[in-house]
């Protein structure tokens, strides 16, 4: 049945020629991931993907926070589509789950209420003089990685297994709510048993952990987080998930949403500070990866090139289990070897880090 659910919820993903829309927040939280996505597609897979500097935020956060009206966001989305058409592309790929939900919702609204599409065309033309064509296909970047998971497996430098024992690593996959919970047909595997990350994990040798709160929201929720007084809800939801997965001893978490990746990672520090509860082996936290980071490690990318030094929970114990070779001394060196600063050690980080990795520069 689970396999049937996965096969029932398939969607067409283009094979090549993508127009890429970046995420607003990922570039701050996981800056290496979007770059890795482009490199994987362009360098490893030889695909044509256009990273357009002219596109803007989809304004999804403003929309979900009630500061951007529906007509405005529809016009902004229409502008993105116009840019795609002008660049000669038809396959729209977005890096952010919120944006993916926004694009899906707006395309569906235009389908159900054609008058809103007409009004949007008028608004866009009045504001910018542009016209747009709707994309031939709309995909989230995790869909694209899923689409090429076997090609990536064929080029893999390592698999998601313990390098010492050969045992598959236990991986918690977490899907952003706006990926398929709004429109189940928009996600691979649907909303209850999504397969988009599970498929990658399986293809690359890991083992998915099915735990009671697997489907629970990470707690990001715009109103939970943006309204400071509500942030306790956000922490509480992340804690609920972390408590639920802890008995399964996962090696890492992988998520396909910018908010989920960040909060499942950073709230581990907050929870440790709040009540002393830590997760993961020896209480050093459970690393949280993006799917591009996971793919990048499989393909042999340098973890610091992937931006994994930006994580709250240290990834070194995971890298050691995977047998990834890395240079501790370059962890905090950015482009051109420039020192990017080093965070103070936090209670959730492995205490031995100072001893093992604190190489004086």
């Amino acid at each position, binding site marked *: 049945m689970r396999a049937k659910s996965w096969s029932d919820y398939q969607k067409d993903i283009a094979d090549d020629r993508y127009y890429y829309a970046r995420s607003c927040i990922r570039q701050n939280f996981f800056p290496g991931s979007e770059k890795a996505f482009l490199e994987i597609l362009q360098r490893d897979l030889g695909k044509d993907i256009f990273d357009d500097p002219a596109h803007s935020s989809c304004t999804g956060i403003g929309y979900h926070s009630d500061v951007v009206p529906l007509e405005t966001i529809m016009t902004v989305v229409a502008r993105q589509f116009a840019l795609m058409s002008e660049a000669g592309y038809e396959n729209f790929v977005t890096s952010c789950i919120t944006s993916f939900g926004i694009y899906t919702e707006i395309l569906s609204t235009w389908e159900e209420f054609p008058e809103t599409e007409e009004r949007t065309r008028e608004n866009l033309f009045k504001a910018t003089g542009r016209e747009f064509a709707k994309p031939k296909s709309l995909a989230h970047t995790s869909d694209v990685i899923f689409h090429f998971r076997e090609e990536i497996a064929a080029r893999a430098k390592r698999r998601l297994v313990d390098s010492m024992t050969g045992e598959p690593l236990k991986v918690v996959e977490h899907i952003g709510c706006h990926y398929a919970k709004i429109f189940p047909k928009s996600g691979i595997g649907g909303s209850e048993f999504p397969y988009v990350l599970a498929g990658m994990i399986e293809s690359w040798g890991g083992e998915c952990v099915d*735990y*009671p709160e697997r489907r629970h929201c990470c707690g990001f929720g715009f109103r939970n987080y943006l309204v400071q007084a509500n942030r306790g809800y956000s922490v509480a939801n992340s804690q609920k998930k972390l408590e639920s997965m802890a008995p399964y001893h996962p090696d890492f978490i992988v998520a396909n949403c910018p908010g989920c990746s960040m909060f499942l990672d950073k709230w581990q520090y907050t929870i440790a500070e709040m009540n002393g509860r830590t997760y993961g082996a020896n209480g050093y936290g459970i690393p949280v990866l993006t799917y591009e980071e996971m793919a990048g490690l499989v393909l042999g990318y340098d973890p610091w090139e992937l931006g994994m030094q930006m994580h709250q929970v240290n990834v070194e114990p995971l890298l050691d289990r995977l047998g990834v070779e890395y240079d501790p001394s370059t962890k905090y060196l950015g482009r051109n070897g420039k020192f990017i600063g080093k965070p103070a050690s936090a209670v959730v980080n492995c205490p031995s880090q100072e001893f093992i990795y604190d190489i004086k520069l």
Partner: protein
Amino acid sequence: MERVIVIGGGVAGMKAALDLRRRGFEVTLLEKSRHLGGKVRKWHCLFPTFTSAAEVLGGLKAEVADSDIEVRLEAEVVSFDNRSVTLASGEKLACGAVVLATGFTLFDARVKEEYGYGIYDNVITSADLEEMFRNGRVALRNGERPRRVAFLHCVGSRDEKVCQRHCSKVCCVTGVKQAIEVKKLFPEADVFNFYMDIRMFGPGYEEMYREAQLSHNIHFVRGRISEASPTIDGRLQIKAEDTLTGRPLKMSVDMLVLLVGMRSNDDNVHLAEQAGVPLAPNGFFAPKDMFAGNVCSPRKGVFYAGAITAPKSIGEVLNEGSAVADAVTEYLS
């Protein structure tokens, strides 16, 4: 006397056929499967008296066997009107009137993916549980006795998300009946029923609901379960909101029973279209009127009996078998 063709060999069809034959009509009873009895063949005992389904069905089948009703099994109908019925084999049967008694389809619980039916071992439907009762063995997949069982009402009923807005009527009392049966088998087990309303519409139903609480200590929680997930020890975690206390609720159970609703048959659309009779918005056949003509279609010579027009209890279905015989007699005389 003219021939009357009854389409559907469940309890409604059998009862209609018997009563029509008693009135002197030549009757042909068509059943698409290999057996008479319809869904009732799969039930163990019937609410509210715990009467054996086999006993009720056995009586009807024996009467049909003793009569000279022409029974055709594996006879699938592709079209009909008030003067003839055409079978999938191409054979066309002439008649004076047609009684449509093709019943209903059980809601496919897999559609409610969040409950994990077909994925998690011990998520079963009320129909599966009836089968377990009939086989004389109720157990978890690993053979163990359940220590905690949850029943969830309204699975595929009163649910806009799955396009089943109607109430299936009999699931509430079925849930109470099955909960009592489970409690009798496993007195030490905790049994919970999660409901949004308890609709005890028939004689003796409310009393049974009360007995379930007072005599069997079955717990009733007003709130629908939102999802089921596996736990590390092989049980099922369920989440709900207890809407009487206004608090979220989470518990682990060994078995989750989904009380699946009654939905209209997929082929109703085709049959209605070709016969020129209307369907109700819920996909069941719409009778001529809801009062004096509830076994009649708007088309002369086409009649309905049983759950073809709406979810009904077995007692009601049997009454309609008799009612339709009266209506057909009046029409043909």
